[in-house]
């Protein structure tokens, strides 16, 4: 995505190139062009562009991708943190 960069070196995306079959589905679903194909396997071309949506992991038939996907909004994460302690409705009612 042009012109927008978020924090660096925080993304949890991991690709097991040994397991990759080169189907290219990750390239098809990634909205930030994180992947590229090289030598009939995928590689992570732009890690920091990843927004951890999880679409690649979901659509990898070889299970070669792993990422901590989930709600990426401050209010939602607050709900998660407080929800674990049994306190509801802290972050807001969006989801």
């Amino acid at each position, binding site marked *: *995505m*042009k*012109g*927008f*960069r*978020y*924090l*660096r070196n*925080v*993304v*949890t995306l991991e690709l097991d190139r040994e397991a990759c079959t080169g189907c290219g*589905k990750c390239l*098809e*679903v*990634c*909205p*930030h*062009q994180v992947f590229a194909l090289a030598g009939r396997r995928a590689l992570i071309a732009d890690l920091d*562009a*990843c*927004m*951890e*949506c*999880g*679409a*690649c992991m*979901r*659509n990898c*038939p070889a299970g070669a991708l792993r990422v*901590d*996907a*989930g*709600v*990426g*909004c*401050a*209010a*939602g*994460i*607050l709900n998660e943190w407080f929800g674990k302690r049994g306190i509801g409705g802290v972050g*807001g*009612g*969006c*989801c």
Partner: protein
Amino acid sequence: MRYQVPAGLYAIGSPSPDDPVVVTANYKMGYDLVRRQMAGRNLWLLVLETFGVNVWCAAGKGTFGTDELVGRIEKTGLSRLVSHRRLILPMLGGTGVAAHEVKRRTGFTVGYGPIRAADLPEYLANGLAATPQMRELTFTLRERLALVPVELLLALKPLAMVCALIFPLFALTAGPAAGVRALVALLGAFLTGTVLGPLLLPWLPGPSFAGKGALAGFGWALAFLAVTGFRSAGVFVSAAALLALPAISAYHTLNFTGCTPFASRSGVKKEMRLALPVMAGAVLLGGILLLAGWRS
């Protein structure tokens, strides 16, 4: 006003068994956008039950998901109506749908089309080929502007509660004029964080949303103090304003990460772990300074 349409299989034009199948959610606006783009063509539109939620959010929640898609294919008897076995899905549905699972369970191959319905005609004309632009998420000024009302509305109730606390607090201790000034300062910080921060997002320095919000909030605090007069406010109130107002603005801009299609979950968590205590501390310190100023 209902924003859902019944899930199921719809015909656009008079589709034959060879015509394409496009899949979408049952959020009325998205559904209407697809129909508008596809007007004049013949194709099948498979609408999934996402309870009126758009594709992206529904995919994140799991309702625009593998099970719903497989179930909807079965319920509508799609395999008896079309001779091919291809589905065109909106790309942002990928977070909820596992293409290989759908293939295994229904025999249908999922092809992820463009992000935007507006690109569907070209995608179809290209023989189901997407250009790089069709797969690129943008976050233009207009797109950011469209999201500002959502953030504003969601924050209104907590804002009202805070105002209900702030006004009496200041009015009772320093008079109604002070109460009004405090409200204006608070509302300004709130609007800076929910409106100005998001609009100026790419131009505010640094990758951190809280940082961008704090900077904008600091600008508001300076402007507010300049207009109301540093001297009349005094050292304690000025210092409190310069601490608390940026914190309030920062919090709201940080919350805009939820509307942002490039902020990673891990990044937001990291920001929150750092920024929330700092914001809370700034507000607390501001409160202490106000108290000290009132006492002195």
